[in-house]
């Protein structure tokens, strides 16, 4: 049988948005994958240049609609670094809690969609969605929004956590921890699941570093690197944070890293809630002419749910002169050119799912 080219996407149930893959098949074996991106390109980087600093956070949230708060925070932190504003003590804790909640929400959605991708197991998707809803309720109590938050302000937040948040949070976290444990037990005792995830899409440590992948995808290949530990921000240093990594380098390792990260996040939130100081967490109002930027150029990095996000900003007066965003999904999607080679067509989707891309994040 000769080589066949099939076109997957841009409208396809498993491409998580508008990703188009042109797959060259030899029988059932994948010879070449050519990802086509850009269907969702909105030119955020250019747009930001025409806006004042604090007009942009809501654009930033739309870069990654699965984890909007993380991008929001990353951008505001970049502006803070440029303007030389320090974040209030309590706000640092609250931001950390929100970021970790966002990470759990994002990973839960990932778990659901990934398992749906490997085989129509819609049950887990629905369960995860329901649990994600609990996290979103917590985020609603903490920020006031469910989907998009725009809660970060320079030096703090727009609104502090609602009273009684910690009580609800402890309860919800206990429940979530139980549920995540159940999912793990259920999935890892399922031979079909293990078969489809293990030894699929193996990426060695050297390959992973050369390919520049980030986040759980990098840590699944045995690289112990997490921005939260290697370049700590906020109060991560004060908490006992452990980088989660696995040595397998396959889809299963990447799945395992995310599961463990969720558990770690739950632990971190509990720890942060224990030692959170009282006080004021409200930042400057949004309608503001900021101080003149102190730095000509700044670079801020954060561990987003999908990997390491970085913003490089050149400032000029009241506007960014240039904002360059390192989107974790962008670089993670690029590995689709390399990973599925030699695998079966059926394995393409576990691999695609395991790198966890959000197309809006890829295209920006």
């Amino acid at each position, binding site marked *: 049988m000769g080589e066949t080219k099939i076109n997957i996407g841009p409208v396809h149930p498993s491409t998580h948005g508008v990703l188009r893959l042109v797959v060259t098949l030899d029988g059932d074996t994948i010879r070449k994958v050519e990802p086509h991106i850009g269907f969702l390109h909105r030119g955020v980087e250019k747009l930001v240049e025409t806006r004042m600093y604090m007009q942009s956070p809501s654009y930033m949230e739309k870069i990654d609609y699965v984890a909007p708060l993380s991008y929001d925070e990353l951008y505001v932190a970049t502006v803070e670094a440029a303007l030389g504003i320090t974040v209030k003590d309590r706000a640092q804790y609250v931001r950390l809690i929100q970021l970790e909640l966002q990470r759990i929400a994002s990973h839960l959605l990932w778990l659901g969609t990934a398992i749906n991708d490997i085989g*129509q*197991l819609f049950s887990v998707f*629905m*369960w995860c969605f329901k649990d994600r809803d609990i996290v979103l309720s917590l985020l609603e109590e903490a920020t006031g929004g469910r989907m998009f938050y725009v809660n970060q302000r320079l030096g703090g937040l727009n609104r502090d956590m609602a009273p009684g948040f910690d009580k609800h949070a402890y309860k919800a976290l206990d429940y979530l921890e139980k549920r995540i444990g159940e999912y793990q037990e259920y999935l890892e005792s*399922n031979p079909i699941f293990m078969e489809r995830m293990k030894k699929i899409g193996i990426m060695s440590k050297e390959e992973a570093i050369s390919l520049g992948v980030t986040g759980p995808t990098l840590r699944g290949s045995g690289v112990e690197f997490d921005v939260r530990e290697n370049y700590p921000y906020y109060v991560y240093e004060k908490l006992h944070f452990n980088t989660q990594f696995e040595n397998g380098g396959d889809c299963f390792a990447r799945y395992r890293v995310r599961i463990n990260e969720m558990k770690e996040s739950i632990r971190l939130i509990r720890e942060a809630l224990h030692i959170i100081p009282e006080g004021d967490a409200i930042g400057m109002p949004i309608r503001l002419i900021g101080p003149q930027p102190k730095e000509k150029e700044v670079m801020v990095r954060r561990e987003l749910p999908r990997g390491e996000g970085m913003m490089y900003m050149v400032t000029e007066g009241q506007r960014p002169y240039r904002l360059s965003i390192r989107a974790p999904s962008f670089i993670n999607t690029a590995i689709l050119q390399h990973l599925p080679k030699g695998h*079966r067509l059926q394995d393409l989707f576990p691999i695609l799912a395991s790198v966890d891309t959000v197309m809006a994040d890829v295209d920006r």
Partner: protein
Amino acid sequence: MIFQNIITGIETTLGFTTVSPIVNYAIAALVFGALIMVLITIFDYIFGWIERKLVARIHLRHGPTRTGKYGLLQNAADFIKLFAKENIIPARANRVLFLASLPIVAAIFAFIVEILPYGAGLYGVDLTLGVLVAFVLISFIPILIFIAGWASGNKFSSISAQRSVLLLISYEIPLFVVIASVGILANSFDFLQIVNAQSSWWFIVLMPLGFVLFFIALIAELERPPFDLREADSELIAGWLTDVGAPLYAISLFIDYTRVFLGSLLVTLLFLGGWDGPVLPPYVWLGIKVLVVAVFVVVLRATTPRMRLDRILRLGWVWLVPLAILNLLWAFVLATGII
């Protein structure tokens, strides 16, 4: 024999004897066919509803609630909607085959269902090789599915059709070997004889291994999850049905549900003692058993991910075929009466 009853019924009501036995036979076949189609439709309807509700409950959803009590009318509404839609034929499809293949598959399934018995006196024809006829007809399906997939001229459909054929062919062998062992045990390939042979011990008790093998192979034949490579929603969009329009899709749904009915009925007849059971009338027992098996199939769908193609084939050839042969030997041992 229900045919004869129908013929005599017609004769007594109309008050005259029809001209030739062939005409009698044709009329009786038509009436019986209509009855069975009603039966299948009722089963498909109930099964469709059970599947939706049960899967929804497993998903922590509600399923249909708005149409009728407990959403009972939802399937009817969907059916009407599907048939009210335009039937789109892709430009590169082979028109005749594309339109014909799905109805032919549906017809074959309807035909198989009609040669099966539903009770001690409830059957159309008593074929001495009924089991073989049924399974020979079932083995026609891969060819038709391949034609259907190929005819739509879509690459996803042809990949799906190829997978489907690969799967069906490799699972027919263990299926047939298990059926052979059932035949040996019952000393017949007649469904009635097989059910009668189970009056003391159901074959599930005598051949537990055979039952498990048969069930696995049957799920593969039905192409239900975890063997649903044919549809493979997340990879091949909708497999061989990617390009079909709504009316043909309705037919494919009918095929799917009829297949489940057929499968559950075969399991019940061959291993669960057919209509055998205390107190309740036989047809109630049959209905209960068929539904239990069908519900098990649904639960499987909601709790297992899809298997990999190579793994499915390995399971079929490396495990099922040798174990089926082992089961055949066990059937020989049982048949000799040593134990």
